[in-house]
Structure formats: structure tokens, C-alpha cells
């Protein structure tokens, strides 16, 4: 099957890839664009490790063909912060021990980012319901939820930061 040209805006930059229609968005991001923040966990739409933002939606990039993403805006963990200037969610995950092995973390933070965009003042239950599509096998979620709640608090009251 011949390759097709796919134009995307990834983390604010226009990029072009070439892919067969059957190539998944996660494959194009990782293998062609070398954006390796989104991980391949289960590749079966369950685990959420491959979560990216596409046109303001959290999506599992293992369940979208790259050709379907033609012309769309994609944000990955790389677009949220960098080592010199961490995103508030990254800062809080670090502070509250919101990760152990770290494999689920890029998807978890990318999903939490969209959740806080849509609901800047979530209850603990909102956070748990909102990250239900992201699996973590290490933490038992307690510290992940704590980290997201702390990030919401920081965003809402930057003055009273702990």
C-alpha cells in the first residue's frame, strides 16, 4: 500500500510524515517524528500510556490511524514542559511521588492536563473518574490523585503554594 503524506501540528510545530494508511498515530509519533514521550503499553486501547491530546481531546494514539489525524493539532508530554521548566503537573508528580517506574506517567500527565483544562476545580472523585482510562501498575493511584489535586490547587491559588 502506498504511503501518504500526513501534515500534523505537533507541540506547536508543523511537521510532515509519510505513512501507510494502516500505521497508527503512535507509530508515526515515535518512529518517524522521534517523539517518544507517549508510550506503547498494551496497544489495545486499555492502558492509556499512549495518550496524547488531539484538537482538545485526550485520545489513545494506538487507536487512531495516522491518516485520520491529517491536519490536526497534537500535544504530547514533550509539549507540556521541559527539564528546565517543568509543567505544574510534572512538578507536582515529582513532589508528591506520583510515579514509580514512570511508564504510565506521560499518558497520565497528558490526560490530567486536559482534565484540568475542562474542570479546573475537580474533586478527588472527578480526578479518579477522569483518569480511569490510564492504568498504573505501581502506585495504586493514591499519589497520582494527590499530584493532580495539588496541581489544580497550584493553578487556582498560585499564591498559597505549599
Amino acid at each position, binding site marked *: 500500500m502506498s504511503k501518504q503524506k500526513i501534515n500534523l501540528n505537533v507541540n506547536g510545530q508543523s511537521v510532515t510524515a509519510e505513512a501507510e494508511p*494502516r500505521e497508527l498515530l503512535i507509530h508515526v509519533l515515535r518512529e518517524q517524528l522521534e517523539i517518544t514521550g507517549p508510550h506503547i503499553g498494551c496497544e489495545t486501547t486499555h492502558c492509556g500510556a499512549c*495518550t496524547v491530546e488531539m484538537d482538545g481531546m*485526550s*485520545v489513545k494514539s494506538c487507536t*487512531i*490511524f495516522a*491518516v485520520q489525524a491529517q491536519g490536526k493539532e497534537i500535544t504530547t508530554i514533550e509539549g507540556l514542559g521541559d527539564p528546565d521548566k517543568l509543567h505544574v503537573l510534572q512538578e507536582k508528580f515529582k513532589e508528591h511521588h506520583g510515579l514509580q517506574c514512570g511508564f504510565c506517567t506521560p499518558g497520565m500527565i497528558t490526560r490530567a492536563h486536559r482534565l484540568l483544562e475542562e474542570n479546573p476545580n475537580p474533586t478527588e472523585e472527578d480526578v479518579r473518574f477522569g483518569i480511569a*482510562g490510564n492504568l498504573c501498575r505501581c502506585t495504586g493511584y493514591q499519589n497520582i490523585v494527590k499530584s493532580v489535586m495539588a496541581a489544580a490547587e497550584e493553578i487556582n491559588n498560585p499564591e498559597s503554594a505549599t
Partner: protein
Amino acid sequence: MITGNFEYHQPGSIPEAVALLSKLGDDARVIAGGHSLIPTMKLRLAMPEHLIDLQAVKELKKISVSGGEICIGAMTTQAELIASDELHKAAPIVRETSLQIADPQVRYMGTIGGNVANGDPGNDMPALMQCLNANFTLSGPDGERTVNAREFYEAAYFTARDDLEILTEIRFPTCTGGYAYEKQKRKIGDYATAAAAVLLTKSGDSCESASIALTNLADTPVYCEEASQQLVSNGLGDDSVKSAVASAMGQIDPVDDNRGPAEFKRHAAAIILRKAIQQAWARA
């Protein structure tokens, strides 16, 4: 997990999509949100040679409420159904059901049209549509026709939709009275072990109308006409509810799988249905 090879098409209108499907025939599949089809293609249980993506067909994305009728375009996502306050006012059971489908990421992509047209007995929308007495509009080479949700499902993955037709919109009356969608599942993201959709209206102390449908308890959704009628005739007393539930249980045909043996599913289904009836009555 790589799918078979296929050619990708993106029509811009319903006539264009219908023409493409007519031309490509059996070798083509229509893709909506893709969250049932892509996993099926990865397992190579589906190997279409052509995929017709409906994402650019703008007229398929809409929610409208007017004159006591709700019309939803097939490409409307579950996230959009949940977000619509207008829809929530007119039929709150839709949000209640949508929130119990899969997980947030899947709900951003998964569409109502895909969910009802796929014919998967595990999907939640088919029973909801039977409960709501919805009509599905199908567009094909010979024009448009309408099929009621209660007549649409023939067997698992077999529906009244012809291979050359596309399900384009869904219409159902606005709801008054009480509602509930109760779902027993092993974990978030799982299909139902048993689920029940119930709508009830009240007149004084008596039940004026009732509609009950069940999810994942047979190879199609199960509309329970007799059980619904019993609630109207005999009211919502304990004995009447018990006999309505028994009547509904007479219609189901669950099978053993990793959600449990059929006997367990019958047990769960009876509890879920009783809960749904009680919840709908309390809200009526």
C-alpha cells in the same frame, strides 16, 4: 498489533460516502470513531480493503431538540452527548448512559452512530435506543429509510442495515418522568455483565408508561415489552416489580464467558433491573 492493508477514503458529504460505499461494496467498511473497528482490525477479525472515514461529513455531527423530538447525528461523540446541556434537559438518561461507556479517551472518539450500528451486544446504546423507542435513519443507494431500534437488531453484529447503507441519524421523543441506566461491570472500560435502561412516567401514584431494555444479556439488546406493560397494569408495588423482573428474565439468554457463568449473569441482571426500576420510579 498491525492491521491488514487498506486504502483510506475521506468523503465530505453523505451522498459522496454512499456513492463510495456502493462502488466499493463488500470490500469497504465505514469508520466512525473507530474504537470498535480498529481493535477488531488489529485482531484481523476484520480486514476491509477500503476504509471510508466519516469524520469530514459535517452534517453527521449535530444534536437538535425541537417539537418534542431529539435528533442526533451519527458522528456525535459520547463526550459531545455528555457535554450537551440541551440534550440533558430533554433526555437525561443519555448522559447517564454515556458516562458509563468505556473511559474518557474512548468517549472523545466513540460515536453514537458507531455504537448503535455495530450490532455488538456489549454496546450500551442499543438497549438505550430501544428503551427510548428511537428511529434510525439509513442512507443507501436507493435513498433513505427509517428502522425502529426495536426491530433493528437481528443477532450479534447482524442488523437491519444493508451493507451498502450508512446509519446517518437517530431520532427519539424527548423524555418526561423518571429514568435510570444501571450497569454492572467488572471494572471501568469493561462491557456490562448486565445493564438495564428504564423510563417510567407517573400519574398520581400509578405508572402511566414504562419502557425497559437490557444490555449484554443475549446476542441482541432485549426490549422487554411484557415487563414494561406489567408495571403499567399493576403498578410499582413489590410484587408487581418482582413479577416484571421475572418476566424480563424470561426473555434473556446470557452465555458463560469470563464475566461469569450464565446463572450468575441472570442473578446480576435481576438485581440491576430492580435497581433501575426503583431508581427511575424515585425520579419520576
